[in-house]
């Protein structure tokens, strides 16, 4: 990994962490619209995978989408504004946290329905294959999603059509309150790749470098037209399932155990140890990101609220090509 890359990836992880910490505070201290699912703890996954994606490569995301957005390079301001339900939000206040996405950086949407982004990712990969565009699709999903029918149909189709997609299972141990081993009769979800004729690999999802390396292989494989890969990243979510959910179903020891291997700390230690960078540089980035987040909050706060009927323009795209009678407003 080159120095510049390393610094960028470090910054991305910090951005995700601080973006969410800020939001957590905001939710505690003032009325915020909707809810959110936090990504803290999983930063290395989104960042390690997106590191290999071009701007015009695609990703699909989930209900837990902040990290994927930031890793793919979405504007922090637009993300924050979306959380505030402002018109300057990346989704124009139409989607909120659960559907947060920035199409301009190749995000095809954050799907709030578990597993449902997976067939969509496969479709985008099919499109890329058909158009010979060389675009790769990274499809993020959870351990829980791996038990949905959509998972199966998506991987199967990707397998038969040899599509350029990387399936990234973020096994953060729980699906909502449920430990994955209580609902999944295999230790490694990656083993399911064999059912679809594609390679499956398990990787330490707390270690950015490990994710980075496996993702390199998988993205490369996809780019070369050799087909899909299933990468299972063993990781952990620090927060409750959503906003204020307490996560009483797990022990604080378990949480502590995982926190010891915090992806930011691990990578920071590596960077410092490798002498690629010095502590001052990293602190500089941290401070930078702090400013960026404060700026985004300001931006969001000062952005206009939507009007009650703004939503109407988004139900259907009006086709300019030829006239169509549209249903009148009722």
């Amino acid at each position, binding site marked *: 990994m080159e120095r510049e890359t390393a610094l960028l990836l470090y910054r991305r992880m910090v951005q995700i962490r601080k973006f969410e910490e800020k939001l957590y505070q905001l939710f505690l201290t003032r009325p915020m*619209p*909707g*809810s959110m699912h936090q990504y803290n703890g999983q930063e290395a996954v989104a960042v390690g995978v997106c590191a290999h994606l071009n701007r015009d490569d695609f990703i699909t995301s989930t209900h837990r989408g902040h990290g994927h957005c930031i890793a793919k390079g979405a504007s922090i301001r637009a993300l924050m504004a979306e959380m505030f*339900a402002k018109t300057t939000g990346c*989704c124009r*206040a*139409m*989607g*909120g946290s*659960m*559907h947060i996405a920035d199409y301009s950086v190749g995000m095809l949407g954050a*799907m*709030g*329905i*578990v*597993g*449902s982004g997976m067939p969509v990712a496969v479709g985008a990969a099919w499109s890329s294959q058909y158009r010979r565009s060389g675009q790769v699709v990274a499809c993020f999903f959870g351990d*829980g*999603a791996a*038990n*949905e*029918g*959509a998972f199966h149909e998506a991987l199967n189709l990707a397998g038969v059509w040899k599509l350029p997609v990387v399936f990234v299972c973020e096994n953060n141990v729980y*699906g*909502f*309150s*449920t430990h994955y081993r*209580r*609902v*999944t009769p295999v230790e490694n979800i990656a083993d399911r790749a064999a059912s679809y004729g594609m390679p499956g690999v398990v990787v330490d999802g707390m270690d950015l470098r490990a994710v980075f390396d496996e993702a390199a292989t998988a993205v490369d494989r996809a780019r070369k037209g050799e087909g899909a890969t299933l990468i299972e990243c063993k990781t952990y979510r620090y927060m*409750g*399932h*959503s*906003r*204020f*959910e*307490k996560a009483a*179903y797990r022990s604080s020891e378990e949480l502590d155990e995982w926190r010891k291997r915090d992806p930011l700390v691990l990578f920071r230690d590596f960077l410092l140890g490798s002498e690629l960078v010095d502590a001052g540089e990293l602190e500089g980035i941290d401070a930078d990101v702090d400013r960026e987040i404060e700026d985004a909050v300001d931006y969001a706060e000062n952005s206009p*609220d*939507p*009007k*009650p*009927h*703004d*939503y*109407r323009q*988004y*139900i259907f795209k009006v086709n300019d090509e030829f006239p169509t009678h549209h*249903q009148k*407003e*009722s």
Partner: protein
Amino acid sequence: MSYVLANEVRPIFPGVLGLMPVKKIVDALNQALREEMDRDERVVLLGEDIGVFEGSYRVTEGLHAQFGEERVRDTPISEIAIIGAALGAALTGLRPVAEIQFNDFLACGMDQLCNQAAKIRFMLGGQVTVPMVVRAPYGATGRAAQHSQSLEAWFVHTPGLKVVMPSTPYDAKGLLKTAIRDDNPVLFLEHKLLYGATSPGGKAQTAVQELGEVFTPAPDEEYLLPFGAADVKRPGSDVTVVATGMMLHKSIKAARELAGADGIECEVIDPRTLVPLDRETIIDSVKKTGRLVVVSEDVMSCGVTAEISALVAEHALFYLDAPIRRVAVPDTPIPFAPVMEQAVIPQIGDIIEAVKSVVYR
């Protein structure tokens, strides 16, 4: 076994609220499940996060502890399997109650519910019975398009399913017990804002406090409520208002305002079950009032308001003194921003406006 068939019990009006604590719907539902599980070993529960976690809206609180892993089963995130497993169990001697975490996710198990469960008794010429219940929360609470729908019409439009939508703790308990004893597949829809309990991250408590009015308590004794019996939640002579769930409460509020400010007396009818639908009570009311406003949180086209309008346009047309007004979500998904969500979900003001428009015409 013995029980009270509480068909004729009328709602208890506000005065009573001071005397008796309003049991929350979430508690009423919980009590119904507990009673039925106590009474009948064949009653088993399954769903995502209903066991150890006690349900995302806490309807199954304490049940895993009391009845154990075998009867309160946490499932994978697999709506096809949840509904299908309930069906298979129902066909073979159990009386399963499945929870789907949001009614929007019924779309994931749609085939099992609508093509299998609803039809199997029919296709097999009556060889089997299908005593299963699928419970699911519905309604908009700031969670955007995929977690805010009110999808009852899909299922009303699926013959072979019964569809229940309680609006009070009293109705919730009595109807859920009936649902569990019914030998047919029942879809039991629960409005999130009416639970009266704070879900992880929810605002339900507030919503209920604002409503209260006909939030009839559920007694601790055992009772059942029949399906297909609408409840006139507020009698009136000028306009018939039909509404379910959360909209029932908004309609009651609207009715009280209209009575006070404008002297318009609304008769507010809660069908309670959409399948079977108590057509007589609705039609008879319209014959009396000559005016109809239908209020629902589902989207307009081919929705519940369409059905009830059509019913009256066919069976009581000549009694109508005004066009039938529908108050429902316009044909749009639910937007995220609260101000936009508010704009699409029927509000008390919309109901008042609609009622006035049919009275003053």
